[in-house]
């Protein structure tokens, strides 16, 4: 039942696919292959493996494995750093004054430009790629956390002060929960950004992964393969986001309740 309802919500997707197929077939442009061709290539490249491995081919494991590892380690690392720093900055206007220009500065620096410098600084490939992901992904988490920690309802803070909650308790029991909706919004933005940064890191400093594959197919003028990579990224992003929403729904049940329109 639930599955059917979930699928029902996807009704627009087949519609778009059909439209895409019609338009690309009519246009006959080699760079815009019809989705049927793209899906066929994707199947061949990644999903024609043995059932024992969930149909994944060697190519899929080689492309997806390292990419996913980078994505998750990068995102988790960023989440920890971003939330910790964000809460600290959000709770201390003074600290915020000191670092704010640096944050706004860093936010406007294109991450691809920094890849070479991370490489120069960190020497090894993997830390440099992680640094790239962290650097590119941290901003929405940081800004949202700062904002969330700074805009706790004043009466909530006063209540905490009155009852003499310790700093740690105030943090864990009041500031963090009340900033949580915004933190989650940031984490969610960051998840798809992490996917993007993973590709950038692989393109500018990679030797494997989906980004590497994307670059290679582009250089070899293998357009259906290239579109396959793009579609794969989109699907991955969609799946990650859906999984994240499931978690968010559980953690933020109170928020939805408090904000439901009766």
């Amino acid at each position, binding site marked *: 039942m639930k599955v059917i309802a979930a699928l029902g919500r996807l009704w627009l997707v087949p519609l778009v696919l059909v439209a895409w197929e019609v338009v690309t077939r009519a246009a006959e442009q080699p760079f815009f292959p019809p989705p049927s061709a793209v899906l066929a290539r994707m199947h061949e490249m990644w999903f024609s493996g043995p059932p024992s491995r969930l149909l994944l081919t060697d190519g899929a494991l080689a492309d997806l494995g390292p990419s996913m590892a980078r994505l998750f380690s990068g995102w988790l690392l960023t989440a920890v750093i971003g939330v910790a720093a964000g809460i600290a900055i959000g709770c201390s206007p003074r600290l915020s004054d000191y670092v704010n220009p640096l944050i706004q500065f860093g936010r406007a620096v294109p991450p691809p430009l920094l890849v070479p410098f991370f490489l120069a600084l960190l020497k090894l490939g993997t830390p440099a790629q992680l640094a790239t992901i962290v650097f590119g992904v941290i901003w929405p988490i940081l800004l949202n956390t700062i904002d969330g920690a700074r805009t706790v*309802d004043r*009466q*909530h803070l*006063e*209540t905490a*002060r*009155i*009852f*003499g*909650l*310790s700093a740690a*308790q105030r943090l864990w*029991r*009041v500031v963090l*929960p*009340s900033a*949580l909706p915004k933190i989650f919004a940031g984490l969610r933005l960051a998840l798809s950004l992490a996917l993007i940064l993973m590709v950038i890191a692989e393109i500018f400093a990679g030797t494997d992964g989906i980004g590497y594959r994307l670059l290679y197919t582009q250089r070899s003028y293998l357009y259906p393969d290239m579109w396959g990579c793009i579609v794969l990224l989109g699907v991955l992003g969609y799946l990650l986001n859906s999984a994240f929403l499931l978690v968010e729904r559980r953690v933020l049940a*109170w*928020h939805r*309740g*408090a904000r439901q329109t009766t």
Partner: protein
Amino acid sequence: MLKITDLVHSYGPHRVLGGVSLSVAEGELVSVVGPSGCGKSTLLRSVAGLIRPSGGRITLGGRTVERTPDDLAIVFQDYSRSLFPWMSAANNVALPLRRKGMDRKQRREAAMAALDQVGLADAGNKYPWEMSGGMQQRVSIARALAYRPSLLLMDEPFGSVDAQTREDLEDLVLNVCAHHGMTILLITHDIDESVYVGDRVVVLTKSPTVVAADLVIDLGRTRDQIATRQLDAFVRLRAEVGRLIRGGGTGHTTESTSVLEKK
């Protein structure tokens, strides 16, 4: 125990408190009445160290209040915004008890007991937004009472509950105050209530606010909803407070100030 001297506060150019002086002895329950917008909540916030008054002094147990004093609880007027929407009622009540060194189970038990006292025995698992206004207000009272502070500040704590519950809560507060020797400052708009629960009633003028009168309520320490309210002394005092509020009478100020000065 609590001594307020010449308290002055302005929001921007707007002077709200014009020199309020008041002292409260240990274990006393003082009712505060005064017109809407005269600065009662402002006074309470100053005592709690939540705002820095523009002038005057507040001492608690001899020490000047600079930041929020230890061992103090408030029931805010805007109770619905002082409950944490991400916690159930029981957790809202239990949260401050962490400071009392209770373990999880003790906290839970104390919270349930306090909720029971305010008539919410079976609402412990509800979230604030699942409760009616009066229930939220009672959770907020339960939280303050469970904490057993030495100074309890209540800002119109019974405004949203029905008459019956209101009486029960009044008696509850009197009881807890007597048993645990709390000092209480209670703001109310109900003249009957101010007399019924108070050891003293402080009447404020409109802003810039000063103390218009400070009446001692000599009805003894044990009160009864029916018996006490039928006493002649009660009726007389009630009328007196009513007259003081209505008249805002300067005539009475001198008389009542003398009451203050006698202390």
